């Protein structure tokens, strides 16, 4: 029996779903191994008999809470798929602005779409069995997860920081150059793609266990960043994580 999979999208850019469609070489093989029964971006068929649910996006409306709970009831395994679902992602940035300012600044009125709520992570609403992190998700990590599923092996995320991958690629360290980068506290698995293209790691995969945030803050302050600037960097993807800055 092929595992039946549903892909569901909440508040997001749908880029993580797109990463599934971006598995151009593997997709035809993948379709022989698993069955998508519900994947609105890609198909008209809508099955309710999924056992595995990939949840993309943050929860930002009352109605989304109810929808997510219904999916949870049907799914045996529920996966937070991508940074918006896992961490709140960039959607959490609105939480740092007064709620009363959101609707007027976009729609010029407050009587419409008023069920908008502060951004929640999927785990704030329902229990989550597994996370595929990243903004966007790494498509190879998605494949490894599917392989694990088929072989009945519990998938695991790397428990070391992005720095390890970055160093092994021989990249020049951005922090050592006096810039900022959150690679030392962020969970690896992305192959350090941002620093490899000379851009700072912004922490989209969430913190690695036992991340030494204090130590990184001290170094970044030595590099000339203010506390507020450092706080803003952490807030970009990890604004809902309890960090004391």
């Amino acid at each position: 029996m092929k595992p039946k999979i549903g892909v569901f999208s909440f508040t997001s850019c749908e880029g993580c779903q797109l990463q599934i469609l971006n598995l151009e070489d593997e997709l035809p093989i993948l379709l022989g191994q698993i069955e998508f029964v519900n994947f609105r971006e890609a198909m008209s068929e809508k099955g309710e008999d999924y056992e595995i649910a990939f949840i993309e996006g943050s929860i930002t409306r009352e109605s989304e809470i109810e929808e997510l709970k219904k999916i949870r009831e049907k799914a045996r395994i529920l996966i937070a798929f991508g940074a918006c679902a896992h961490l709140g992602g960039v959607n959490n940035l609105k939480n740092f602005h007064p709620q009363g300012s959101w609707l007027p600044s976009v729609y010029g009125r407050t009587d419409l779409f008023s069920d908008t709520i502060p951004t929640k992570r999927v785990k704030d609403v329902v229990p989550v069995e597994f996370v595929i992190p990243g903004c966007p998700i790494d498509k190879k990590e998605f494949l490894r997860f599917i392989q694990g599923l088929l072989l009945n092996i519990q998938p695991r995320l790397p428990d070391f920081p992005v720095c390890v991958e970055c160093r092994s690629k021989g990249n020049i360290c951005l922090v050592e150059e006096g810039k900022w980068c959150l690679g030392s506290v962020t969970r690896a698995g992305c192959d350090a793609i941002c620093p490899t293209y000379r851009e700072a790691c912004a922490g989209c995969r969430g913190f690695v266990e036992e991340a030494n945030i204090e130590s990184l803050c001290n170094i970044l302050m030595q590099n000339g960043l203010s506390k507020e600037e450092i706080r803003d960097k952490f807030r970009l993807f990890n604004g809902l994580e309890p960090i004391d800055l």
Partner: protein
Amino acid sequence: MSHDIHLHHITRVEGHGNIVLNIKEGRIEELRLEIVESPRFFEVMLVGRHITEAPPITSRICGICAISHTSASIKACEAALGITPSREVILLRKILMHAEVLQSHILHLYLLVAPDFFRVGSVIPLAKSNPDIVKRGLRLKKAANEICRILVGRHVHPIAMTIGGFTRVPTQRDLEEVRKVLEMAIPDMEETIRLFEGIDLPEFNRETRYCSLKEAEEYALYDGRLYSNDGKSMEVQKYREFITEEVIEYSTAKHVRSGDSSIMVGALARLNNNYSHLSDKAKEAAQRLGLTLPCTNPFMNNIAQVVESVHCIYDSLRLLDLLSSAYPYPQSPTPYTLKEGQGVGVVEAPRGTLYHEYGVDEKGMVRSVNCIIPTAQNLANIERDIAAIVPMILDLPKEEIERRLEMLARAYDPCISCSTHFLEVKFIE
């Protein structure tokens, strides 16, 4: 004949939307294209952030047109800061825009639209019945994604694009690799033209206003003046005179008009306005595909996407030639100092004209934001098309009406996450 159609969450489009249609004795009583995607409030989120974060944050508006958002955002930042990037940087950005348009059009044509022509529900049964077609679509999509990977790390949220240039400048070897990818894509593109030559699209014409960028010298995607086919032409800074946005009660995406007319943006609008600047191979493809311009059939937007895909491949090769002869490149990114300013950045995203405007203070903090998304600009026009086509298809069975309406909406390639999200049809009976 009475129908109550409620297409809830239109499928094979990006995002969440509904078509609500209530027909009593052959008359439309109610017609709404509802956008029910959750609003995301980027205009709020960006305020108080540093200007250098505007491009990576606004890239997250849309996974499919991430490079367009990043480009429009960078251009708005550069306009606010008074930066002029080097010619080479602009050439590279143009190649990236081509890659994104190709990626997005191919995704739409092969994975979302093609199932309609083969009368299946999705690409998944299509992969069983016509594996060669699906594999070809995936190869072309991969080619476009490969170009982005080589130049800026990836397509879904490009990494190396930044204000003033690139955090990592592509090497000559990278450019050679891009060229190989493009050359290898040519036979598949040729087959794609052949595939669409054989496809019958519904005959339905309705005149509307076609809006796009327009340039004197080339087919405008990255730069140009605002232009509409009624002869209006202006600088991008005056976009608020060009189009007006309005809040619609049933749509989390605003609607857009030009004067009293709804507008159409995207591939067909661009071809209507800029056909003469297409590369020869693309013109040849248009001819073979029976696309005579100006064209007022929105279903032909699919064909326009095929023609643009051809253009993107051949024009990228031309841009690569210009780049290769200019190596080594000037310093990138161009150094700049922060200052107070206001800037507008406009590009042609795959689905149409994309506007970003920011105000920044002297410390480089964003103080005001406005983004106008292509799909939002098409919504009012899709509604009017539905109103015009329904009387022509009223006698068909309800399922067929639903199928046609979904196809019509899908022809616009709506991207609802962007416009906030899109489509289901609701009949009310």
